[in-house]
């Protein structure tokens, strides 16, 4: 037969694969004959097609093979599996408990990590257009300051981008006004996160509106939207609030809508929204404002817009709207998709509208840790089951003798491990119910196991994961146990099982991961305590911050004098901005010998004794003094970084001033303060100029309170405040609480890593405990003989421990370099960081070794002390 006259090969193969063996000859013969007959009368194509048709028509009950496997898996057999598995689990209680608990702890940890990660990832996902919304960010590079990414943009940019770019469907801008005092009749309330937004707000975001018209509520000037709970601070019901007015900053605003409270998983958090049109009328139209960056702009792009191509066109866009020849070396615009804003903004500064900002790369670390924990738990299972195989030889032998197929034995062991995994999952969920509330307290979250049951798919995924965990961990032991050949099994096997290369490898992997996590925890904790303890150049403890309004500024000197009378108050000062983040930057001029230098440092407006109260040290020159009339607005204290940047021969006495000062009426640099970390330690200290400028007004009063007298201090400040500033409620916070917030992401990461490292060493040790029990039991006879021949207890203990100690040693050697490199990379994300001390590694290794040895000592000592007669009678 030539190739052309052969029936289709695939069909032939298929036929053979499903057809009963005794039918193959006649059926293939019939089909071939038909095919050959067809070839004479029909096209080859048709003949082949018909062959396929005939083949598939043989898929009939009478013709197909009986699949024995399928028929074997009947209920009765499963019932038997269940019975035997239950008996086995109950018979070896210790091993079963170890298996179940290590898997359960592993699963519980994974569930928690999953809940944590999915909580972070749920941010902003409720906006239906979220995949088309982008935030406009800038990279700023000015002379004399660190290059920085900022979340701010110029008010003119939004409208211009919409005009110039066909990709931009719309824009919405946020002007954050912070905390504001609003009044309705007698009710005065501080409303936080007040924002001015464009009327396009609802075209972008799906914040639900309870009352009011989504399309028009922000269309008129002097209108305001309140969230439900804000409205209820002023009115009895939200119905009543609609269309009423509320008083703020000298004007009445009409309430045109009530919003549902902003959900926790939104990076934009507000209590009131005011209409932008209030500011787009007349001369001060913000739409024409360029140069200053003080709004946050979001763009709604057409689907399938090419972000890269847009970003390439931004330089041309900037130069077409601004005359500055430097514009494109100073600014680079870029776009950030909405889902990146929460998780990928850690290197972005001046990012004021970003609630609970989280370092997204930590999520990856969490996933990896979850994987590690599962591996460690799975290793326990595999090790213990294979090590214990000899106990089941008789069972396997008998089953084989009465005709059990290999596959059936295999199925039985897999069934057993899936069953254990199932029990472990139940225990895991119970553990989670118990421990999640404690964990929430520890990391400041509201995670809940209930979230897992909200979504059928999630639950299915958890079950599926548990099932596959059971199967995967079951495969190796099952394979191992079913591979014994029958005669060996029935003779009782041999005792060479104590040494298994694979088992040793698994212990090495397990302890490697555990040691890696212990060392990481130590380093992470060191770095965090370094940030907490390290000298940031000023005293952030015991510093009470009080929000100030106009009246408080007017009466500032009186307030200060009153407060200074109190014994527990150690100092009173004020400033325009709070420490703990980057301070506002603007242009600054310095008159050097070579001409006037233009620099853009961070700037802050402070009270005369600010440096003293905050304990900042002078390096050169003097601080501000009230006695010197020129110190008001005409004197500057710059930081060391700024001085180094200037590289002047004589910094003190140099003429300098803000950008808008006339070159002839500049002030003087009167002092250089030692660098202090006004920003988070992730960043290098930026150049900074301090000035005393009471007319600009201060934002916050800083009151230093004696340690241990906080309650008294707060009460005293409140009393003075309520007397002197009736127009504004006493609203305070502590500076160290603010710093806690700055390092939140890092702290939560460290908490999770610490807990997980603890769990991983715990699970590893549980496993080691079980493994030691089994291997030592197998050596009972050997120990007996040795003792009879005169070995001492300590010799035997050493003998038994040596093997495990060696494995932990190998794990340590392998994992150390990997851990070192990983940790080094993490530390590089901090501008101020610790050096990795190699002793930490030694400590981690020794810790693992000591814990490991302690754990197995229970078994080693017991068998070393046992009466040798008993040992020799064993078996």
């Amino acid at each position, binding site marked *: *037969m030539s190739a052309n006259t052969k029936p289709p090969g695939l069909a032939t193969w298929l036929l053979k694969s499903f057809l009963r063996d005794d039918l193959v000859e*006649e059926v293939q013969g*019939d*089909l071939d*004959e*038909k095919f050959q007959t067809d070839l004479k009368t029909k096209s080859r194509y048709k003949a082949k097609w018909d062959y396929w048709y*005939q083949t598939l028509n*043989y898929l*009939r009950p*009478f013709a197909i093979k009986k699949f024995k496997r399928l028929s074997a898996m009947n209920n009765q057999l499963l019932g038997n599996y269940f019975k035997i598995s239950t008996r086995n689990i109950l018979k070896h209680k210790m091993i079963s408990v170890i298996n179940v608990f290590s898997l359960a702890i592993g699963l519980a940890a994974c569930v928690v990590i999953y809940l944590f990660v999915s909580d972070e990832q749920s941010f902003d996902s409720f906006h239906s257009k979220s995949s088309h919304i982008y935030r406009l960010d800038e990279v700023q590079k000015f002379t004399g300051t660190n290059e920085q990414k900022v979340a701010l943009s110029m008010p003119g940019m939004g409208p211009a981008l919409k005009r110039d770019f066909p990709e931009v469907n719309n824009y919405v801008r946020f002007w954050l006004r912070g905390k504001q005092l609003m009044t309705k009749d007698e009710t005065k309330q501080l409303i936080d996160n007040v924002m001015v937004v464009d009327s396009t707000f609802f075209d972008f975001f799906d914040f639900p509106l309870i009352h009011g018209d989504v399309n028009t509520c922000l269309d008129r000037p002097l209108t305001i939207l309140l969230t439900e709970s804000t409205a209820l601070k002023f009115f009895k019901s939200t119905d009543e609030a609609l269309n009423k007015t509320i008083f703020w900053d000298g004007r009445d605003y009409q309430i045109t809508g009530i919003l549902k409270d902003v959900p926790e998983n939104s990076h934009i958090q507000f209590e009131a929204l005011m209409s932008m049109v209030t500011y787009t009328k007349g001369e001060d139209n913000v739409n024409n404002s360029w140069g200053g960056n003080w709004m946050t702009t979001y763009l709604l792009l057409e689907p399938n817009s090419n972000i890269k191509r847009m970003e390439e066109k931004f330089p041309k866009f900037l130069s077409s709207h601004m005359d500055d020849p430097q514009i494109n070396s100073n600014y680079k615009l870029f776009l950030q998709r909405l889902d990146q804003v929460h998780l990928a903004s850690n290197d972005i500064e001046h990012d004021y509208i970003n609630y609970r900002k989280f370092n997204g790369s930590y999520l990856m670390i969490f996933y990896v840790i979850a994987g590690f924990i599962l591996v460690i738990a799975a290793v326990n299972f595999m090790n213990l089951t294979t090590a214990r195989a000899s106990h089941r030889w008789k069972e396997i032998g008998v089953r084989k003798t009465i005709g059990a197929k290999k596959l059936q034995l295999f199925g039985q062991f897999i069934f057993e491990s899936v069953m254990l995994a199932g029990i472990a999952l139940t225990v895991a969920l119970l553990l989670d119910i118990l421990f999640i509330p404690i964990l929430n307290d520890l990391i400041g979250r509201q995670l809940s196991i209930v979230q897992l049951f909200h979504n059928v798919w999630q639950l299915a995924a958890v079950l599926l994961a548990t099932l596959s965990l059971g199967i995967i961990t079951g495969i190796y032991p099952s394979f191992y146990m079913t591979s014994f050949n029958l005669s060996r099994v029935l003779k009782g096997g041999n005792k060479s099982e104590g040494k298994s290369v694979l088992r040793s490898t698994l212990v090495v992997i397990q302890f490697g991961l555990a040691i890696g996590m212990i060392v990481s925890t130590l380093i992470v904790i060191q770095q965090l305590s370094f940030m907490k303890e390290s000298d940031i150049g000023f005293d952030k403890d015991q510093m009470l911050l009080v929000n100030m309004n106009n009246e408080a500024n007017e009466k500032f000197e009186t307030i200060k004098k009153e407060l200074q009378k109190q014994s527990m108050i150690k100092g009173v000062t004020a400033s325009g901005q709070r420490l703990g983040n980057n301070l506002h930057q603007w242009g600054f001029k310095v008159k050097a010998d070579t001409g006037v230098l233009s620099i853009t440092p961070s700037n802050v407006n402070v009270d005369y004794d600010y440096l003293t109260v905050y304990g900042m040290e002078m390096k050169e020159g003097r601080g501000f003094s009230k006695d010197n009339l020129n110190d008001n607005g005409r004197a500057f204290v710059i930081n060391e970084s700024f001085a180094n940047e200037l590289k002047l021969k004589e910094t003190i006495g140099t003429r300098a001033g803000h950008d808008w000062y006339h070159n002839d009426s500049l002030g003087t640099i009167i002092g250089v303060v030692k660098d202090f970390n006004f920003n988070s330690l992730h960043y290098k200290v930026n150049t900074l100029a301090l000035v005393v400028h009471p007319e600009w007004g201060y934002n916050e009063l800083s009151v230093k309170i004696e340690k241990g007298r906080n309650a008294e201090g707060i009460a005293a400040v409140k009393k003075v405040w309520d007397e002197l500033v009736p127009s504004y409620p006493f609203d305070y916070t502590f500076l160290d609480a603010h710093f806690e917030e700055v390092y939140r992401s890092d702290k939560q990461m460290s908490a999770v890593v610490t807990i997980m490292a603890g769990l991983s060493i715990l699970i590893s040790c549980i496993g080691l405990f079980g493994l030691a029990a089994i291997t030592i039991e197998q050596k009972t006879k050997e120990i007996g003989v040795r003792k009879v021949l005169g070995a001492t207890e300590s010799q035997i203990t050493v003998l038994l421990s040596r093997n495990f100690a060696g494995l932990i040693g190998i794990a340590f050697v392998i994992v150390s370099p990997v851990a070192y490199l990983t940790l080094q990379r993490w530390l590089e994300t901090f501008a101020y960081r610790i050096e990795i001390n190699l002793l930490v590694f030694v400590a981690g290794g020794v810790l693992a070794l000591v814990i490991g040895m302690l754990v197995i000592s229970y078994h080693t000592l017991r068998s070393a002390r046992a009466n040798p007669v008993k040992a020799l009678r064993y078996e």
Partner: protein
Amino acid sequence: MIETRLGEFEEVILLLTGILGEEAYAFKIAEEFESQTKRSVSIGAVHSTLTRLEEKGFLKSEMGKSTAERGGRRKRIYTITAYGKKTLTAAKEFKQALWDQFPGFATSKVSFGLS
């Protein structure tokens, strides 16, 4: 009531097996079925029925000769058993009896079973 125990398709297959004699194997029967009835049928369907008829004892089979078109494979030749013949006759007679009771057709000769 007399039960024929034969389906229409089964009856035809049984008859065709008888007609084909020495050449009665699945492929040929299917071919013959198609040419006689102008209805298409798969060899699998025929084979399945043949097996069933053999199980019921109407047919018996044995492996026959091989030919070149079959790639040297043998074929299974089916022959009607005495019991098969008896059942066929019974079926025919039962239907004939029914026809005879049908006033409009009482005397006419018709082929039944097929149409």
